C-alpha cells in the first residue's frame, strides 16, 4: 500500500485514541488522587463521573477566551499551540508493537519508524519548552515570567542527567531506533527473568534517574515549580483561559504519555511480555481481564448503589470479551503487544499520579542542587560503569 495512504490511515486511528486518552487521563488522575486522599473524586457527570472529561471539554470550548491587553499578542497566541504541537508530535515515533501483517499489508505498529527516533523525541520535547517559556514571557506578568524562567532552567538542568541515563541502555542495545531498542530487549535471562534493560540489563539506576528527570521535564509534582500555585498563582499559564489553557493542559498530559512510553520502550522491554510466551505469558492478558471482570461482576451482584447493578455488569462483560479477544488468532498478534505496551506505560503513568498524591514539592534551590549534585554524578557514574561492563563483554 502507498506509504502516504498508510500513514494517513494510521494517524486516523491513532489521533482520536490519543486525544481520548489525554481527556480520560484527567479523569484517571482525579480519581486516583481522590482515592489517595480518601475522597470519591468526580462522580456527578455520568456513572462514576465517566462523562466528566466531555463536560470539561465543552466547558473549556465555550468559556470566554480572555486576552489581557498587556500581552505580546503573537507569542501569546503561539505559545500554547507550540507546546501542544511538539508534545503530540513526539508520540508519533514510538512503536507500540512489532511489525505486523494485517490483510497482507506489513507495517510497524507506530506512526513512524526512523533510525534516530529516540534523539528525535529528545529534540521535540526540548523544543516544547519554548511554549512554556514564551507563554511566561509574553504574558507580561511577573508570575508568568517566573514560571517561564523556572521551566527553562529546570529543563536544561534535568536534560543532562536524563540524556546520560538514556545513554547507558543505549550502550547495551547499540541503536537509536526505538523498534530495534525494543527488539534488543527480547529474550529472558535464565529463561525466566525478562531481558529488559531495567531488569535483566541491570539498568535500574538509569531507569530511576530517567523517571525522576521525566517528572521534572513534564513539570509534574514534585518538580512542578513552573506552575507552583501557592507561589506563582498558576505560573506560566496564569493569563491563559479557555482553549489556550486547555492546550497547555493537554500538552502536559501528552508529555507524560511520551515520557512513560519512552521509559517503557527503553527500559521495560516495550511490547515484550513479562514471562516467556512458552511459560504462559500469552495467557496473562486474558487472566488479568478475567480477574477484573470477576471483580466487577461481584460488585454488580452486591451493588453499593442501585445503578451499579447495570453499569458494573456491562463493563464486566466488556472486559470479559476483551480478555477472550486476546486469544483470537488474528487479533492476538495485534492485541497482545498492545496490551503489554499499554499496561507498562499505564503503570508508569499511574506512578506519576501516585507520586503527585504523596510527595511534596521541592524548593527551587533544592531542585537545582538535586539535579546537579545528585542526579548528574549518579548518572555519570552509571554510564561509566555500563561502559566498562559493555567493553569488557565485547572483548
Amino acid at each position: 500500500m502507498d506509504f502516504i495512504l498508510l500513514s494517513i490511515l494510521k494517524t486516523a486511528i491513532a489521533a482520536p485514541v490519543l486525544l481520548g486518552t489525554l481527556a480520560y487521563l484527567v479523569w484517571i488522575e482525579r480519581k486516583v488522587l481522590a482515592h489517595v486522599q480518601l475522597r470519591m473524586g468526580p462522580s456527578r457527570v455520568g456513572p462514576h463521573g465517566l462523562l466528566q472529561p466531555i463536560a470539561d471539554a465543552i466547558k473549556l470550548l465555550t468559556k470566554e477566551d480572555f486576552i489581557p491587553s498587556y500581552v505580546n499578542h503573537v507569542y501569546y497566541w503561539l505559545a500554547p499551540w507550540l507546546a501542544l504541537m511538539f508534545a503530540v508530535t513526539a508520540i508519533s515515533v514510538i512503536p507500540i508493537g512489532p511489525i505486523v501483517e494485517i490483510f497482507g499489508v506489513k507495517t510497524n505498529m507506530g506512526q513512524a519508524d526512523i533510525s534516530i527516533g529516540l534523539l528525535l523525541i529528545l529534540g521535540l520535547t526540548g523544543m516544547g519548552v519554548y511554549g512554556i517559556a514564551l507563554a511566561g514571557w509574553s504574558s507580561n506578568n511577573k508570575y508568568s515570567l517566573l514560571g517561564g524562567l523556572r521551566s527553562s532552567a529546570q529543563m536544561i538542568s534535568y536534560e543532562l542527567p536524563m540524556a546520560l541515563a538514556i545513554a547507558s541502555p543505549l550502550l547495551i542495545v547499540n541503536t537509536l531506533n526505538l523498534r530495534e531498542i525494543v527488539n534488543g530487549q527480547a529474550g529472558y535471562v535464565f529463561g525466566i527473568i525478562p531481558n529488559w534493560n531495567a531488569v535483566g540489563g541491570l539498568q535500574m539506576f538509569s531507569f530511576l534517574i530517567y523517571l525522576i528527570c521525566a517528572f521534572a521535564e513534564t513539570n509534574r509534582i514534585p518538580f512542578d515549580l513552573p506552575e507552583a500555585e501557592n507561589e506563582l498563582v498558576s505560573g506560566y499559564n496564569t493569563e491563559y483561559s479557555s482553549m489556550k489553557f486547555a492546550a497547555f493542559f493537554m500538552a502536559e498530559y501528552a508529555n507524560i504519555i511520551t515520557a512513560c512510553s519512552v521509559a517503557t520502550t527503553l527500559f521495560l522491554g516495550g511490547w515484550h511480555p513479562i514471562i516467556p510466551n512458552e511459560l504462559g505469558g500469552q495467557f496473562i492478558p486474558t487472566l488479568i481481564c478475567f480477574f477484573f471482570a470477576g471483580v466487577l461482576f461481584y460488585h454488580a451482584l452486591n451493588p453499593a448503589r442501585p445503578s451499579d447493578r447495570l453499569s458494573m455488569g456491562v463493563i464486566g462483560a466488556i472486559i470479559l470479551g476483551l480478555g477472550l479477544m486476546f486469544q483470537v488468532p488474528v487479533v492476538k498478534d495485534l492485541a497482545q503487544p498492545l496490551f503489554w505496551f499499554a499496561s507498562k506505560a499505564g503503570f508508569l503513568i499511574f506512578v506519576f499520579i501516585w507520586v503527585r498524591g504523596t510527595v511534596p514539592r521541592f524548593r527551587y534551590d533544592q531542585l537545582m542542587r538535586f539535579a546537579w549534585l545528585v542526579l548528574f554524578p549518579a548518572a555519570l557514574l552509571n554510564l561509566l560503569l555500563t561502559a566498562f561492563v559493555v567493553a569488557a563483554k565485547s572483548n
Partner: protein
Amino acid sequence: MTLEAFFFYAFTTLALGGATLAITRRSAVHAAISLMVSLLGVAGLYLLLNAEFLFVSQIILYIGGILLLFLFVIMLVNLDAGRGLRQFHQRWPLGAAVTAIAGVAFAILWSRAKLPPSQTMPDVGNVELVADTLLQDYLVPFEVVSLLLLVAVVGSVLLARKRA
C-alpha cells in the same frame, strides 16, 4: 520544482530570514526566537543532506539547549530594558557598504570557483559513521575539545563567582 528543491529553498529562507531578524530585532527575546528559526532552517538543510544525526544534534543542542539558555538569561536580567535605547553611533552605512563589497567579491569568487562535486551521505548508518569518524579519525580533537570546555568552565566560574 522538485520536492527537494522546494524544501531547500524553504529551509534556506528560514535560515536567512531568521538570521536577518536576529540581528535587526530590537527586542532581545524576538532576536533569540528569530535565531531559533534560523537554526531550525539550518537543521532542515542537514536533513536534506541525509545527515540526520547532525539534524537532531542541532535541534537538541542548539535549540533545546544553548538558545534556551540564552532565553533564560534574557528573561532573567530583563534585557528588554535596553529596547528603548538608541545606539549612539550610526555606522550602519559603513557596515552596509563593507557587507555589499564583500558580497560582490564573494559572488565574483563564487562564479570563478572550481568546487569539488558535492557529496551526499550514504542513506543508512549515519550515526555509526559519525561515531566512527569522531572516535577513530578525530579522536584527539574530540578529546581536546573537552580540554577547551574545561578551560571555558574554569574561566567563567573564576570570573563570575562571588568574592570570598
